[in-house]
């Protein structure tokens, strides 16, 4: 099950995307993904959600009130650096595109109106790429452990960190007590 978050200030777009992700197969080569979709029309609420829940893929509009897509994805990248990121926008502004690529390192920039097939294959590719990357890292860690470059503790800490970002860091409060909620 892959978790996908969709963010667009327009509800109609969100429901159209929800339908698409429900009915269209999300597959690439011999891999297929089942998707669990959450939608948000407010980027701020979406970012708040990303504080508490891990997602595999974020799809965001570019032009939104409160904050634009690049800002939103930048926030997301800090929280969940391994998640795939995608921008779906009708605002074809070169500056926006450049910012998205340079500041956020997005996987794709897809224009509206989108082609359903292309969008689904972009999502599948991003998810497959992400899986590959994580697998690669895990294998590399195993090899490093065998070669004695890394301790099993460090690798476990890394795994936990990936599951629950921030868990391996202690947040000290002002009164020298640790606090559970990130103050960040």
């Amino acid at each position, binding site marked *: 099950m892959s978790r996908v978050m969709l963010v667009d*200030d*327009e509800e*109609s*777009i969100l*429901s*159209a*995307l929800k*339908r*698409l992700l429900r*009915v*269209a197969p999300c597959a690439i080569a011999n891999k297929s993904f089942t998707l669990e979709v959450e939608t948000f029309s407010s980027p701020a609420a979406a970012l708040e959600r990303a504080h508490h829940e891990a997602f595999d893929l974020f799809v965001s509009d570019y*032009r*939104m*009130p409160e904050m634009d897509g690049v800002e939103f994805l930048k926030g997301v990248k800090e929280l969940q650096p391994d998640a795939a990121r995608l921008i*779906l926008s*009708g*605002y*074809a*502004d070169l500056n926006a595109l450049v910012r998205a690529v340079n500041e956020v390192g997005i996987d794709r920039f897809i*224009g*509206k*109106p*989108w082609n*359903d097939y292309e969008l689904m294959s972009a999502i599948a590719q991003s998810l497959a790429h992400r899986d590959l990357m994580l697998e690669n890292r895990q294998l590399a860690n195993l090899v490093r452990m065998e070669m004695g470059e890394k301790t099993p503790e460090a690798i476990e800490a890394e795994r936990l960190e990936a599951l629950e970002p921030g868990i391996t860091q202690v947040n000290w409060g002002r009164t020298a007590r640790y606090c559970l909620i990130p103050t960040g």
Partner: protein
Amino acid sequence: MNETFDREWRIEELLDPATLQRIGPALTALLGGDAAIVDARGSVLWGALTNDARREPVKLELEAVGHLASANAAQAQLAAARCLLEHLLRTQIRYKMASNLHLEVVAADFDRLRLEHARLQESEARYKALSAELEARVKVQVAQLEERQQMLYEAEKLASVGQLAAGVAHEVNNPLGFVRSNLSSFQVYLSKFAQLRDRLAEGETAWKALDLDFLLEDGNDLLAETLKGVDRIAKIVSELKSFSNVDRASEEFADLNTCLKHAASVIEGQLPAGVSLRFNLLPLPGLICLPGHINQMLLNLLRNAGQAIVDAGRSGEILVTSEADEAGITISIHDDGVGMTAEQQARAFEPFFTTRPVGSGAGLGLSTARNIVLAHSGRIALDSRPNVGTTVTLFFPVPK
């Protein structure tokens, strides 16, 4: 000047023929009927020189410049006459010196004046040349300036066309995106119903297995949303059309006061709490216009005014006034809302420029208004101060 002023004088210079004519006879008489004046080289200036004549040197500045000669006169007589002559000559010298000095001064003055004159003429010529050059340069620069202005105007026109295109693209692409996606989803829904046809034998199990309850319900939502999207595209296109005056309606004879009241009646129901509308209308002459466009423009302006008051977060009033003189009709719409900064004012008439958050204003209100006013050969002016309010003034000329 000094060489001529302080030089040695010769006797023939001092005694010109006119002087000789006057003193010659007098000397002759003094010396007893026989006298001659001789210069330093021995030539006779006056009288006749006889060989036996007694000579008396005439001295000036210790040097003999000539002789006075007489055969009859006694020595004493001759000496006295010489004395007189010397005195006369000295007087003459003084006179000559003074007159020469004067002449020299005048000549020097004249020279200086001539030089000055030449210099002035030269500088005048230079100034003339400079001013001609300057004029030519100004002409070239004015031409350049005009050309630049034209280029700037073209560039601005192109930029606003580009902005228009980008704005339209964005506004249209959003609904187009979900409409298209919905339709292809609907295709999938239909194919599921098609599958039902093959599984009719299974009855309700097939219906449940294909999740057709959801498809029916969502299909309805899907179509409703799609319709809304298509309507939105249609609305954008129609706004653009009136923006560009493509489908020009027929012109009518209309009273702008009626138009104002009409627009007000449309908007009155939508006015937020705390915003009141006041009229101060004077009788107006009829105007040949496109009432549809005028109404839309007034509606836009009133809506803007109301929104400006809401944005200011206080209660306020929209004051609409109209008046006419022989030149034309003036309508002003004043609100005491948020107002605009100078920068916003400068861009206010740009198509798709809006201060509203994304999605709540298309930024076509004022640019459309201006195009409509221009189409009626009128003028639109904007006067706004932040936190004080905005006045939009419209002027329509009345043809004589």
